[in-house]
């Protein structure tokens, strides 16, 4: 059973979208924690 180009594209696009969202989310959380005084 071979993987199609569409399957590969969908899988990688979803993975890339989550990976791209990760640094943004981390920075947003960092600012939120910092403002609340809960950084560490």
């Amino acid at each position: 059973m071979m993987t199609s180009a569409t399957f590969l594209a969908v899988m990688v696009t979803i993975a890339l979208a989550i990976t791209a969202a990760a640094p943004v989310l981390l920075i947003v959380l960092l600012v939120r924690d910092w403002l609340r005084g809960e950084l560490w």
Partner: protein
Amino acid sequence: MIQARLISQSQSYPAKKGNDLNSAQDAILDPDTGWIILAGFSLLWLVLGWYWGRKSTDLDQFVLAGRKVGLALGVATAMATWVTSNTTMLAPQLAFQMGIWGMLGYSLGSVGLLLFAPLAGRIRLLMPSGYTSGDFIRLRYGKTAWRVFLGISLLYCLGWLVSMGMAGGILINALTGIDYLYGMSVILSICVLYTLLGGFKAVIGTDFIQAILILCGLIIIAYLAITKLGFEEIHDAVQQQRPELLNLMMPAAIMFLFNNLLFGIGEIFHSNVWWSRAFAFRQGVGFRAYFLAGVLWAPIPIVAGFIALAAPALGLNIPAADMVGPLVSAEILGVSGAILVLIMVFAALSSSIDSLLAATSILIVEDIYRRHLRPSASAKILRRASTLVILGLGILTWLLCAPRISNLAAVLNITGAFVARTIWPIAAGLYWKSTNPAGAITAMITGSAIGFAAYHLIDWYVAALTGACVSMLVVLISTWLWPREFAWDRLNEAQPT
């Protein structure tokens, strides 16, 4: 995660078209550029380590960052620590060797983080003043189980540390041509120094920056691969030159997937690297931090693996499978791609080495020094002992890395059976009052023995699977047949004063 390294092979993959990056001996960057990058980031980690460590004078501040780490730093440290050099270098290699299943199998390493999320919350709740995973085993199952656990846990931590130190030297050499001994010495000494200066705060703080660097590098390389080549072209080239990589019925890859899953869970459940974070996170943060880290980590091996699949479309000649990631990056981005890979690798290595130094040192200080040698040691003495142990561990690791032991991978592979055997004793011990010490000890010993036998009699890919299954059966049967009530408040021990 380290397990996937174990199928590492130096295979040659001739391409249809030639190119100039066709020798394993050819470094992608020149040594001068390499030294400038290493010096710049080393200085940054040292300054940050010193800055964050200024107030880490007492024991809890130094070894657990004051037990008040918030969500952002919690997620980043779990992610960065789990992204070892393998995730950036070996995920592409696995995709290149095992195709789609290699990417997905590596991605299943995130299950360990996801499953540890509820455990992290419970650990923090039941042991508000705990320090190590050894503390839990000692209090929950007694001294015999604790010593059995400690033996393998310390061996595993040291093995992981040595493998990361060696990986540092090898990768820096492959990327820049800097001599193995120099590269390994730089990365080890920098990590030891900033961990000494800043303790756990330095580890967690630098992990945040390292996580951002790794993620950004990966996004840039993958995005450029897609825009430069496109999915269709990449898929067509793989289908023509390496069709097996697109086959969803690749048996070896499917077996790798399950073994990797269990190894990853065992690695996280037993290791003090993850327990120390559970103790360090602010109350209520542990579950969310590990869960989010698992969700955000899962796509990383897929993206990193996809980069390797671009090799046939680029017509790259891959002299050694473990260099496929850097070679594709250099082909797409030129020198800046190679610099990006070096920064990512340096960040990934530092984030794992510092975590291992911190977690292993507190395991030695708490479980060996305090519990075996000086039960009355004050917090001040333990704080000082932590410094000495970090330094000693750094020196020991350097001594073990210097000869570049060739069969280290085999040693680590065997530990797959050992770490997977701890999954059930730990999970059951945290949730079931009736799981008994004898059952836990028997599960760990028989799981290890049978997993070890399976490793030799069948192959490496069944070691973790067999060890985990046997250990599960022993825990379930012994809990059912010989239940023994345990009072949870016994886990809440007084802190050293």
